């Protein structure tokens, strides 16, 4: 390959295709003919046809594009990373968080703060859990690292509020107890993959 090939920076031209337009008429008779042909061919009516077709599609074909937003919402991806949510155990209703502090450790924006203590049964319980949403960059590491799938991202993207803190109070982030039956497993970042069973291998015990 010679150097000229590298110096030819006009790399995109080869992919363009010129429209097969007739040359612009220069003579008076040529211009007259062009006008006549364009008038008789009724090219303008094509535009009318297209618009009326779209109108009938919208009105009778159910292809209206409008979503009446506050009343209707478009579905979002299950992997969408919006405001955090804490899940509960389905059997007992106790929160899943075991207070391991991995989320606090991995958080690259340093926005998670977790305090734990031993309760009367000498089990670890979360005494304080806050997320500073002013710092959170919604990277999803906390949900990925969480061994219990306790902290996950919800699809709650409407984040206008009088106080940010109302989104991150631990009690409010937890699934309400009366809606425990409706709690859905988070399919997004950090969740168990759908073919997890196939990937399980026996622990080698030979050593």
């Amino acid at each position, binding site marked *: 390959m010679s150097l000229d090939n590298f110096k030819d920076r006009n790399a995109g031209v080869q992919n363009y295709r010129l429209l097969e337009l007739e040359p612009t008429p220069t003579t008076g008779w040529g211009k007259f003919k062009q*006008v006549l042909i364009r008038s008789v061919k009724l090219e*303008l009516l094509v*535009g*009318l046809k*297209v*618009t*009326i077709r*779209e*109108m009938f*599609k*919208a*009105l009778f074909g159910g*292809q*209206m*594009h*409008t979503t*009446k937003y506050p009343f209707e919402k478009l579905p979002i991806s299950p992997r969408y990373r919006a405001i955090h949510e804490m899940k509960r155990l389905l059997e007992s209703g106790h929160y899943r968080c075991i207070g391991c502090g991995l989320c606090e450790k991995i958080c690259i924006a340093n926005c998670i703060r977790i305090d734990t203590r031993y309760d009367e049964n000498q089990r670890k319980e979360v005494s304080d859990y806050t997320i500073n949403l002013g710092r959170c960059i919604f990277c999803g590491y906390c949900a990925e690292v969480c061994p219990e799938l306790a902290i996950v991202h919800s699809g709650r993207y409407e984040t206008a509020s009088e106080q940010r803190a109302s989104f991150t109070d631990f009690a409010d982030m937890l699934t309400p107890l009366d809606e425990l039956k409706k709690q859905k497993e988070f399919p997004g970042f950090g969740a168990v993959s759908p073919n997890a069973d196939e990937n399980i291998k026996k622990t080698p015990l030979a050593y």
Partner: protein
Amino acid sequence: MSGFIIATVIKAIVVLAIISALAGFGTYIERKILAFIQRRLGPMHVGPYGILQIAADGIKLFTKEDFIPSGANRLIFKIAPLITAATAFIALAAVPLLPEFHLFGITVRPIVADLNIGLLFVIAMMGVGLYGPLLAGMAQENKWGIIGSARTAIQFLSYEVVTGLSLLAPIMLVGSLSLIDFNNYQAGGIANWIVWKQPLAFILFLISGFAETNRTPFDLLENEAEIIAGYATEYSGMRWGMFFIGEYANMITIGFLASLVFLGGFNPLWIIPGAIAIVLKVSFFFFLMLWVRSAWPHIRPDQLMWLCWKVLMPLAVINILITGLVA
């Protein structure tokens, strides 16, 4: 005599009320149709299907600050919107809106004044309507207004010629200027419509009608992309609203003219009675204007002049010549 005066005054008030209400309704229809064509819903939330949006817009227009720029010629600035609205309604005076009907034992002729020069009167009044945008643009001390009024002058004056010449051929056929005579000439079914005898005149009249009412392929007077709002740049509130009502009344007038002169007017159509037939025809023309607005782009002022003087006017003259030779 006094009965005639009372009847005329009542008719004038009824026509004014109905047409200005329809002009307001026209804004709603326009927004809805354009929305449907773009697969949107249009106004939906004020009232059922957004129909009270008209009332909301009206309240907004009425309560807006009445603003006159400091350098403007105050008197002419105030008069100009009145000219547009008034001429649009005066033009409707000579248009028979519906066939005759009986009400409380009285035969009502739904035409304010059956002039023997009806068509000429309507065209003349729509021609006078050019003073509205012209004076408005020149009175407001704004360069966009000046450009808008200059465009008004060239566009309206040029297309007056085409309107007049294209209507001349049907006038030669009918031999009268009264729109009622036009209607009676086409009595007896679709085959008698003038559009079959004068297809070219019909198309020319439609094109120039779009230009006269300042509708989209020719709406250079207030083309937002080029000259802000043209002659209406400095207007707000109800003064601007009057321009709007005048424009919509003109659209309705052009619709009536096209239906009466070319499409058989208010003659009964098969089983459809005449009154409904003409309303359908006018609605079609109204829809056509919105349809064209959604589909076609503006043209440049020089293309506008080219189209008028080099294409439409020669065609209109040739059409008259042929009509004169044949008829």
